[in-house]
């Protein structure tokens, strides 16, 4: 199991008339295939920037990201991106929404269509395929958004606060749901979150960033003693509090 994502000395500067903002500096990170990584950090420390660089939406001003042995130069089907909200298009049916990526990459054929239909079937959205997004619950919508991402069969999923638009209870359930799908589909995942508990409960490793310019402060390998590794049951593990407190201190949140 080699590293599928390699981040080498990555740095990113933004330019505006007010000056130059260094969002990220000297980021080095390797993510193994099938691993689940959480990234936490203070507001504005460059978490979204890091994901955008990995997704090829931005060009780094320093260093590089290598995914599957190739340097990232632009958006690529190897990487799937989930945003804060589901952003299902209200003028498209669920089915039409899920095939959006296939349409854009012009890879919609009988093979990929069958794959999408299978995903919808497996994850209980078949009966909603001809419905419009506003006819679905928040959790179902998030599932549809994940299937839209999975449809182009990416190796790596980037989730940028993917659950934060949901209310707390839905959020727990959706995190559980999405986690199990990601594991079942055998994807590598990188999750950005503000929620320390969420980051610990889902991840194999938690990466803590410093405030801007964002650098890696610490990386915690998470070892929890719980029989079924699901985010919910992980929260019950005795070590959970210990990780929580350390990360809380690292983030150094003041009021």
């Amino acid at each position, binding site marked *: 199991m080699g590293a599928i994502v390699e981040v080498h000395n990555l740095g990113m500067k933004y330019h505006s008339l007010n000056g130059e903002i260094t969002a990220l500096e000297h980021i080095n990170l390797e993510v193994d295939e099938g691993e689940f990584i959480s990234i936490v950090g203070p507001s504005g420390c460059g978490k979204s920037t890091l994901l955008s660089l990995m997704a090829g*939406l931005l060009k780094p001003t320093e260093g590089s990201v290598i995914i599957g042995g190739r340097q990232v130069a632009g*958006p*690529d*089907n190897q990487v799937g*991106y989930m945003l804060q909200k589901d*952003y299902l*298009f*209200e003028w498209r049916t669920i089915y039409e929404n899920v095939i959006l990526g296939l349409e854009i990459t012009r890879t919609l054929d009988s093979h990929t269509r069958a794959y999408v239909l299978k995903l919808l079937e497996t994850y209980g959205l078949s009966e909603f395929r001809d419905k*419009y997004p*506003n006819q679905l619950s928040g959790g179902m919508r998030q599932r549809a958004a994940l299937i839209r991402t999975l449809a182009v069969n990416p190796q790596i999923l980037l989730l940028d606060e993917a659950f934060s638009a949901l209310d707390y209870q839905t959020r727990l359930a959706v995190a559980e749901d999405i986690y199990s799908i990601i594991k079942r589909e055998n994807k590598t995942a990188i999750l950005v979150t503000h929620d320390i508990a969420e980051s610990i409960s889902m991840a194999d490793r938690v990466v803590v960033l410093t405030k801007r310019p964002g650098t890696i402060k610490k990386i915690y390998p998470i070892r929890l003693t719980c029989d079924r590794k699901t985010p919910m049951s992980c929260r019950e593990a005795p070590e959970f509090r210990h990780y929580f407190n350390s990360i809380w201190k690292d983030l150094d949140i003041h009021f």
Partner: protein
Amino acid sequence: MNSNGISKEHLAYLRKVRMRKALILSLRLFLLVAVFALWELMARMKLIDPFITSQPSRIVNTIARLYQEGKLFYHTGITCLETVIGFLLGTIAGTLTAIVLWWSELLSRVLEPYLVVLNSLPKIALGPIFIVWIGAGPSSIIAIALTISLIVTILEVLNGFMSVDSEKIKLVRTFGANRLQVLTKVVLPSSYPVMINALKVNVGLSWVGVIVGEFLVSKAGLGYLIVYGGQVFQLDLVMTSVLILSIAAALMYQGVVYIERLLIRSGRHTPL
């Protein structure tokens, strides 16, 4: 709500809603009839001078006379046709221009002040110029109607394009969408409601343009009948034309509303 087990309270509620609807409709009709009846009555009783105010029975006669002379549909048809053409051209050209400006940020920045000036300019002032350039005929009238709706459409639609949620654009970009795909998959469909709204505004603006154009050109159409009637002091003709005009304008507006409904029902977009 299941249809076979409606409760008594709900039935009563539904009846109340229906009654209210019927009441509103009958009051509306009553208002219309009352105004015309009062108008006719006052004219007959010589409380108002029908030479200046005209009166419903004279209007009916005028319509009949215009019809017999074959002028009714001729003038109405010309005005409607000019309006529809001006309206369609304004909407289509405006939307296309908005797309071009959305595509090239540089161009839109360069043209911004000019658009603002053109927008605040009363386009009717350009009427005589069009008549000199294109000639005193329907083309000039259509040109006036077009200019009136064009700039508003450009600004409205472009504004709609710009206010599309940037995260939606980011979403399609993560799939590697190019600019054309961003336009067709996100920006245009998101802006459907804005475009429909522009359509509604344009119907009204096109009527203004066409009537003013016909005032200036003075050859045919309802606008021509109105100016002509005014000049020869035939208020019957003026009132008749205004009445036909309001009916035609209302019908066209309903047409746009109907198109909007069709679009909503086909589920292509949600209402504003």
